[in-house]
């Protein structure tokens, strides 16, 4: 994925000890932990066609074989086919003797210019028509499906028969002499024995009368291969050898396993496969972390617990030259902290392996950009000063903006950093958990102090090489 930011510089550590950029993580607000793609269980919500955005439930998709009924892919290059109309003079449907100009439709790929005419499908009078069934060989394929259903029925009946036979064997494994009604009918068991016997011999069960013919060899021996199979040798100069373009490529052939077209005239439009909308669930607590709207045209979410919207983001803003503080292997970094919430949040950064000298107190971040515009005080809206009472010190804070804070930090042993994993930091922040309204109280906001572990890896070409 291409981004403006270098996503590898600052990673957050997920609860499964894997480091990922913050945009790839979710915050479970019930476990209060970061979750990555692997800690999360995806579930399919519904299927939708990427072209017409028509969505269907999973049951419906199963019936339609996970394909859209209206959209088709080009068999030649895989892009979506679009319907084009031309006018042609055809006998009018009312009066067959008169020739009237009518609109006829065909499918065209805008990328490689394949049309249904190339596939041998005649132009149709209506724009939405089952194009795939009109391709050559469609009748053969439908014939197969009828045959398959009769065969499955027959085998199902055979399976029932075999099951009954097994039952009969179970019942019939007993010494019959004791229970034959001829010898003893003292206890009135004759009728019971008769009933069991009749059950064991299911004479009412007629075998299926489906004709499954024996395999036969064909009468006539196979013909020699059609001359067209033997292509003339390809001359070295011509990239488009004569006849080569009448063959389908391997990718084209494998894309359509039903037809497996060998010639390009056999290529038929492929029904467009559907994609699925999925919702994500935390594996530990089973709550939903991400639940999109059912309608694929609406990019909103019912539940969206992306870490980007809940956890303050730290970025490496700039790398300055060392100021000779602790020897020349030092450089000054500016770290940018962004508040995702619409209320001021307190954050505190701490370095875990003492390589980075950070200001050791809690800073207050103003509300993020959109919410800041609603504030009355224009200075507070611009975020130029600290929302808390403590003023910022210029050796700690480089700058402030709406919801943003630039912290100054000094990095020691910068040259060794390139070889190591990175600097481990701990970010502790306030998380505003909106608890659902209970019967007694209204909607309450619970403020929790959460921590996240970060891994900072400044890019190799920074300060260290500047000193060298």
């Amino acid at each position, binding site marked *: 994925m291409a981004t403006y930011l270098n996503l590898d510089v600052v990673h957050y550590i997920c609860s499964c000890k894997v480091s990922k950029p913050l945009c790839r993580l979710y915050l479970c607000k019930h476990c209060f932990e970061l979750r990555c793609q692997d800690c999360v269980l995806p579930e399919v919500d519904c299927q939708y066609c990427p072209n017409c955005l028509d969505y269907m439930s999973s049951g419906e998709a199963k019936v339609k074989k996970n394909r859209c009924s209206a959209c088709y892919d080009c068999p*030649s*290059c895989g892009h979506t086919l679009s319907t084009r109309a031309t006018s042609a003079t055809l006998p009018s449907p009312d009066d067959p003797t008169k020739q009237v100009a009518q609109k006829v439709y065909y499918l065209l790929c805008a*990328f*490689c*210019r394949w*049309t249904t005419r190339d596939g041998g499908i005649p132009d149709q009078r209506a724009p939405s028509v089952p194009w795939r069934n009109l391709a050559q060989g469609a009748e053969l394929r439908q014939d197969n499906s009828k045959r398959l259903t009769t065969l499955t029925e027959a085998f199902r009946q055979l399976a029932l028969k075999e099951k009954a036979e097994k039952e009969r064997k179970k019942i019939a494994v007993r010494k019959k002499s004791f229970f034959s009604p001829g010898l003893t009918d003292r206890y009135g068991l004759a009728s019971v024995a008769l009933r069991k016997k009749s059950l064991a011999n299911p004479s009412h069960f007629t075998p299926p009368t489906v004709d499954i013919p024996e395999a036969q060899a064909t009468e006539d021996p196979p013909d020699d291969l059609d001359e067209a199979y033997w292509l003339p040798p390809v001359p070295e100069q*011509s*990239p*488009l050898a004569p006849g080569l373009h009448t063959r389908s490529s391997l990718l084209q052939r494998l894309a359509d396993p039903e037809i497996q077209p060998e010639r390009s005239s056999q290529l038929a439009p492929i029904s467009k496969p559907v994609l699925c909308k999925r919702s994500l669930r935390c594996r530990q607590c089973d709550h939903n972390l991400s639940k999109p709207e059912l309608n694929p045209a609406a990019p909103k979410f019912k539940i969206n617990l992306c870490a980007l919207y809940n956890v303050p983001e730290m970025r490496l803003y700039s790398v300055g030259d060392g100021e000779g503080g602790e020897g020349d292997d030092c450089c000054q970094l500016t770290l940018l902290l962004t508040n995702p919430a619409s209320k001021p949040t307190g954050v505190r950064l701490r370095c875990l392996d003492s390589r980075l000298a950070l200001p050791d107190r809690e800073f207050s971040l103003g509300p993020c950009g959109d919410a800041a515009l609603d504030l009355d005080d224009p200075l507070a809206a611009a975020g130029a000063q600290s929302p808390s009472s403590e003023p910022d010190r210029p050796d700690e804070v480089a700058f402030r903006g709406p919801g943003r804070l630039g912290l100054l930090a000094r990095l020691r042993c910068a040259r060794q950093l390139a070889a190591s994993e990175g600097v481990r930091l701990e970010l502790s922040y306030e998380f505003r958990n909106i608890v659902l309204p209970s019967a007694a109280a209204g909607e309450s906001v619970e403020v929790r102090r959460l921590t996240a572990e970060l891994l900072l890896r400044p890019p190799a070409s920074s300060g260290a090489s500047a000193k060298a």
Partner: protein
Amino acid sequence: KISEMSRTSVKIAPGAVVCSECELRGDITIGQRTVIHPKARILAEAGPIIIGDGNLIEEVAVIHNRPDESNPNEKVMIIGSQNIFEVGSRCEAVKVGDFNVLEARSFVSRDTVVSNGCTIGAMCSVTGREVLPDNCVVYGAASHRKVVSEKPPAQTLQLDFLAKILPNFHHIKKAGASSAAAAAAKQHRPS
């Protein structure tokens, strides 16, 4: 260069719509109903360029009769009719037929001969020494080839529309032959 400018002679057939803002250098003949957008560049460096009827040459398209070191003889570049040179396309082919479409940012080299009805896809480049078959389509990042059954449709509606709209917004060069002296005088006039 003064020598080049003095050689500029453009013959514009009646009905052709050639915007003044396009760059025309060298000996160029433009056929009827051809539309040339502003910022198109037609450079007849190594020889004259003859453009047929009903062509559509869009912005930033370059038609360049480039001098060839291996073959310094003057060669006439002939472009047929009803071709479309989309935005940013570059054509250095010496012979182009009819009903071709050079999509955006495509490139055809001097050695290639473009026949009729070909479609050179966006960003594709065709550089081999060959004659492209009729109705050939070049597409995809790897410049795949295939031959389709029919040529791309003629864009007569588009040409008519442009012929009506462009004069409302741009200065149009007048039809007829513009001689070298008049062209040189125009270049020196402060614009």
